[in-house]
């Protein structure tokens, strides 16, 4: 990319722009109620029934003759994978953001919700809710830029190891839940003055990991008795399907061609309006319908999610046209496209920046704003 597609705003324009975003938020929050409560409960129910169906199909399939077993195994793994995708994205990610805290229902409280993934929600709140959402796309502060593994932007330092990143990226996709789980766990410093907190954090993470492993790879396979391996392999595939899907959606959110990254100096006296402005410039949407919205946990509306991370995600689809109109009027590029187009751009980034690259002069200039 050579030049920002977003024009610079005067500080007065920027404040007006921010006020319009604020007003949209206020209108939406004032309208929250029964409809949203029903929505998240229906998601919860869908997670439960698809999980039950998936586990039952795998279990029953283990005792059927081979051709039937394969059919049941495929259907079971898909259903369980779907359950985990919905649990992680539309239910877990959104609830942990506190989007449904206003309900006062202990089941949907952001501070106590736990999800079906190896990472703890506690660690996620720090890396994701705080760091990623506050410092979105700021080099050195937002660890989601390449997750410390991948070089996706020319501003990141190149090393010969980056040449292997196409392979690393594939492995990372298959093991995505593990990458997220260890992200921001204290690396070292277990013995010093602050060692106690670090040790505790690792202990909690290890406990969550062991629960997840025991559940999917011991208890449920054991329940199938001689069908142990059928269930175990089905669970493994379900977890991998979830990993690949979440990886795809999340990478499309911030690593498409037109997204911008920032130098940490943008934080100096940053106003709320500028924060909004930065969120839009650093995020990209996926165009699609109900199915894509639901399966992506409404991260198909990554822009709206970044503007309003604690507004129930089922509202993004209604807020999007308003946001898009505001962006049009203020000359802010609204980055959206189909899943194939956006993910194609992500793949290109992974390939391109495995080789040395330099940010263009025009682009660097745009960051001074």
């Amino acid at each position: 990319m050579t030049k920002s597609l977003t024009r610079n705003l005067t500080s007065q324009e920027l404040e007006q722009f921010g006020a319009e975003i604020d007003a949209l938020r206020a209108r939406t929050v004032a309208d929250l109620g029964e409809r949203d409560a029903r929505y998240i409960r229906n998601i919860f129910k869908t997670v439960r029934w698809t999980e039950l169906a998936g586990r039952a199909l795998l279990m029953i399939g283990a005792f059927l003759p081979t051709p039937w077993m394969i059919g049941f195994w495929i259907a079971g793994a898909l259903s369980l994978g779907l359950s985990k995708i919905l649990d992680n994205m539309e239910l877990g990610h959104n609830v942990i953001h506190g989007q449904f805290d206003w309900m006062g229902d202990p089941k949907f409280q952001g501070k106590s919700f736990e999800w079906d993934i190896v990472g703890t929600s506690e660690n996620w709140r720090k890396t994701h809710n705080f760091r990623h959402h506050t410092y979105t796309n700021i080099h050195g502060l937002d660890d989601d830029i390449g997750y410390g593994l991948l070089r996706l932007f020319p501003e990141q330092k190149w090393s010969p190891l980056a040449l292997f990143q196409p392979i690393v990226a594939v492995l990372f996709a298959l093991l995505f839940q593990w990458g997220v789980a260890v992200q921001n766990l204290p690396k070292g410093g277990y013995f010093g003055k602050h060692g106690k907190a670090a040790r505790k954090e690792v202990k909690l993470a290890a406990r969550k990991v062991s629960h997840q492993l025991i559940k999917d790879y011991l208890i449920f396979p054991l329940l199938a008795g001689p069908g142990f391996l059928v269930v175990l392999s089905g669970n493994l595939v379900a977890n991998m399907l979830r990993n690949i899907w979440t990886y795809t959606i999340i990478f499309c959110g911030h690593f498409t061609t037109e997204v911008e990254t920032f130098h940490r100096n943008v934080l100096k006296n940053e106003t709320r309006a500028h924060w909004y402005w930065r969120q839009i410039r650093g995020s990209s949407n996926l165009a699609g319908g109900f199915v894509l919205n639901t399966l992506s946990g409404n991260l198909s509306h990554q822009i709206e999610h970044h503007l309003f991370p604690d507004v129930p995600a089922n509202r993004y689809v209604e807020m999007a046209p308003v946001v898009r109109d505001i962006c049009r009027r203020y000359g802010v590029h609204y980055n959206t496209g189909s899943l194939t187009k956006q993910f194609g751009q992500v793949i290109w980034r992974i390939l391109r920046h495995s080789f040395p690259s330099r940010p263009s002069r025009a682009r660097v200039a745009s960051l001074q704003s």
Partner: protein
Amino acid sequence: MTTAFASPPASATQPAPSLLRRWAQPFVDPAVFDYWASHINPLWTWERPLARVLEREEAAAGAVTLTLQPNRHWKGFTPGQHLHIGAEIQGRRVTRSYSLSDIPRADGRIAITVQKVDGGLLSTHLCTQTQVGDLLELAPAFGDLVLPKALSGRYLLLAAGSGITPLMSLTRALAAQNMPLPLTLIYWVKTAAQACFVAELKTLAQRFANFKFQLIATQEGGQRINTDLLAPSVEAGAQDLHAFACGPGGFAATARELLGEQAKSFKAEAFTPAVPLNTDSKHQVKVELRRSGRTLEVASGMPLLAALEAQGVRPQSGCRMGICHSCVCTKHEGLAEDINTGERSSEPESAIRICVSRACTDISLDL
């Protein structure tokens, strides 16, 4: 002073969980268990106290008595105590405190009598929407408006409006013991049609010579609480008089004024929020909500809960008058003042009730 009470204190220590339960605990997500169990019996939960509405009965004009069947996770109560009842209204859980009006029963059922309050979210819901078969959330019973273990002397109960409910429970508890000591109940209402339990109280007064019952309707010529009305009880000997009062804040304050010094013991519970005394404190303070990573500006004179709610933050809350401790949260730093008592706390990492606390300085909360 350490004050770490995140919820109403549990009335009894919980029995140790069974071996099976302890083994299964790490692998059970209560929400998932509750979802599947509710298909068999809506009251079956892993740990959440719930109750089903069994009966619904008009108690008076604008008041209903709900008989509830709690599940096994609700651990009982002592007459005079209250509990939190929660129901979902337009997607939001609304919790308020209600006194239990009955005495503990063999079948475990409990009863609350709810007076419809103008603009009261939950009371209106319970009086007009709640049907037999509905589920309500419960919390452990709490409160110390209870009779001592060893009874002695004479008792005077002063009720105003829906303040009758805990005192009705006490009256029934004493009636169940055949009224072992002299008891007087004075019950103020606006109009006689609004009075609950009147037939039962009159029957009890006929049955027990020890029990005197007086109903006063203030909008129908009756007097508000005053020295004359209390004189018979006081003159019979204040030195062994135990007085209980329950009603609006002004009523409880007057009762305390008239009896607090003279009676051997005096207990009161009030249910209208106290008005902030220090309303002149108009300056703005910063409230850091450390857990959600936000900082808001509020007027120092406003109770923190109301100030936060006005900005769209919804911390847990219950009675909104400082007695139920639902909204207790840890104050990391800053100077907070109890609006009711004027007591100031600069102790770091101390628990405050945000519904009756204002921030005198910038403050940081575990929210």
